[in-house]
């Protein structure tokens, strides 16, 4: 059977359970696709032996499976894992030179949950260094290239989970893990025509995931369909006693909640997201998506989230501040890169050279901005003020939800994928604007999902974002399913790689 790698999680699962295919066949198809994908640079550490061992074990488990004792949810399904997740015995570098050669002696809770659910790990996926970037251009492994292409322009798959989104779009794996601090799952999903969900803060354990900004980071899946997102998210989530911010709320069966029926749901259209200079195509996509949800029986209402404008500046205080502290542990003492020292160099030189060599430009910039905003005399002016603005942003959402709004519809990104290298000489702020529609969700800790909603004039995918109430990922995914069905997006990139 050909193109097994093009299956969705749900499709492959059903075939595995029906014994139409084996996990080894499925895994081999993915491994073959990965082997032929070096020009995309999505998989940066391949683990074919591990994958095949796991696939064989999964096949045995599937063979024993019965109605009474079904195989676990992801049994035999091959996935890609973002390099930010620590995976036992497998290089886990956060796409940084400072973690060169680092092989953790432990497995992150989320990837362990996936393995416990029977998943097969194909390898580690490219990303922006320490998840800091929106174009996958800050990686020590080099750029990931978007499988979607216009003419000869090499495009970004977005970031930071660019390798994950690119790999899923190119059918190198059935689905992949991502992480989202300011939009790092949803923006790449939008740029690659995939589905990406960031759950409520606290749904997924952060234990074992290299930290960027602790109060914002959340893991989530990037998949080929909303149903797949529901299946994989459920496997990733769950209470973890090792993460103090992990929720003890039970995880519902998200897939079982998928009916596609959104009749009577109230969906908000936030006026503040209609920004100056927004491309007409995005505006039209949004309007069209709203109309389709209305056709599906939802009640569309205009809402206001007055502090939206301040989300990005607040984010660019809070995220770098936390990062500056979280990244202090990369000091060349216990693991990772240590600079070669000159005669007479002491401990301070060791730190300074190690960190200058090990961190790329964007990471250095953010660590230093974070250091500055926390430094003596500026704490209240920057950090505390940003936390107050963050409280106001959350309040905006609370007010809207209290008024009976079930979900909010907005564009995921202000544009389609741009060319690699095109933003090279722009000031860093231009790049930061990519997150303008997504950061609010991180600041408020809410679940947000990006659903592919159409192509732009060049033929590149565009996404729409749905934002849900805290802990209501089930309702949110159901709404996303309705949108997915209504827009009927089914295009795939033409294979050129």
């Amino acid at each position, binding site marked *: 059977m050909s193109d097994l790698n093009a299956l969705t999680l749900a499709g492959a699962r059903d075939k595995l359970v029906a014994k139409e295919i084996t996990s080894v066949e499925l895994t081999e198809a993915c491994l073959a696709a990965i082997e032929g994908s070096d020009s995309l640079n999505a998989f940066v550490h391949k683990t074919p032996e591990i994958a095949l061992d796991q696939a064989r074990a999964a096949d045995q488990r599937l063979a024993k499976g019965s109605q009474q004792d079904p195989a676990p949810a992801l049994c035999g399904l091959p996935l890609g894992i973002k390099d930010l997740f620590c995976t036992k015995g497998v290089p886990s570098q956060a796409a940084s030179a400072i973690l060169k050669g680092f092989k953790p002696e432990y497995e992150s809770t989320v990837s362990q949950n996936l393995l416990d659910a029977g998943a097969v790990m194909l390898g580690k996926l490219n990303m922006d260094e320490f998840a800091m970037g929106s174009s996958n251009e800050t990686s020590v492994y080099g750029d990931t290239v978007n499988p979607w292409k216009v003419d000869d322009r090499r495009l970004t798959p977005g970031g930071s989970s660019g390798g994950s989104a690119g790999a899923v779009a190119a059918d190198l794996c059935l689905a992949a893990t991502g992480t989202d601090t300011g939009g790092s799952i949803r923006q790449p999903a939008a740029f690659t025509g995939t589905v990406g969900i960031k759950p409520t803060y606290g749904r997924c354990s952060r234990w074992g995931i290299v930290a960027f900004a602790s109060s914002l980071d959340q893991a989530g899946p990037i998949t080929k369909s909303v149903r797949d997102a529901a299946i994989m998210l459920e496997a990733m989530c769950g209470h973890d006693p090792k*993460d103090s911010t992990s929720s003890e709320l039970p995880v519902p069966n998200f897939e079982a909640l998928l009916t596609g029926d959104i009749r009577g749901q109230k969906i908000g259209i936030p006026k503040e997201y209609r920004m100056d200079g927004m491309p007409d195509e995005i505006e039209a996509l949004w309007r069209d998506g709203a109309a389709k949800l209305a056709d599906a029986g939802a009640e569309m209402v205009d809402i206001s989230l007055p502090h939206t404008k301040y989300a990005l500046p607040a984010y660019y205080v809070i995220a770098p501040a936390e990062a500056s502290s979280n990244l202090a542990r990369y000091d060349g003492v216990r693991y990772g890169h240590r600079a070669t020292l000159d005669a007479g160099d002491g401990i301070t030189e060791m730190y*300074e050279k190690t960190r200058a060599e090990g961190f790329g430009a964007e990471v250095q910039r953010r660590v230093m901005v974070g250091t500055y905003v926390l430094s003596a005399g500026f704490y209240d002016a*920057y950090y505390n003020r940003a936390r107050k603005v963050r*409280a106001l942003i959350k309040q905006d959402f609370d007010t809207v939800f209290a008024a009976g709004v079930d979900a909010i519809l907005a564009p995921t990104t202000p544009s389609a994928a741009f060319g690699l290298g095109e933003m090279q000489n722009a000031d860093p702020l231009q790049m930061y604007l990519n997150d303008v529609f997504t950061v609010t969700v991180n600041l408020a800790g809410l679940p947000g999902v990006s659903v592919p909603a159409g192509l732009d004039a060049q033929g590149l995918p565009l996404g729409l974002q749905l934002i849900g109430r805290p802990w209501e990922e089930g309702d949110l995914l159901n709404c996303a399913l309705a949108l997915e069905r209504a827009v009927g997006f089914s295009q795939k990139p033409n294979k050129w790689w």
Partner: protein
Amino acid sequence: MAIDTETAARVAKLARIKVEDSDLPALAGEFNAILGFIEQLNEVDVSGIEPMTSVTPMRLKRRVDAVTDGDQQDKIRANAPDFREGFFAVPKVVE
């Protein structure tokens, strides 16, 4: 608030990142652009607003007092750049 090269150098020092003197003006320029952007926060009336402490409020998780970890020198040292006689070795620290 404009950041000069001296401040940029101080910040780099605090962050323990070596920045060549010749790169300091560009770094200071980037800081100024980012901080200028952040200054927008001053437009917001935050009087009477408590800073957010946790985005999803819940009771702080606690452990019982039991030894459940440790005794794994091999794993602790496995990735160390310089490990000698049971210790992590670093260039001499002068106190």
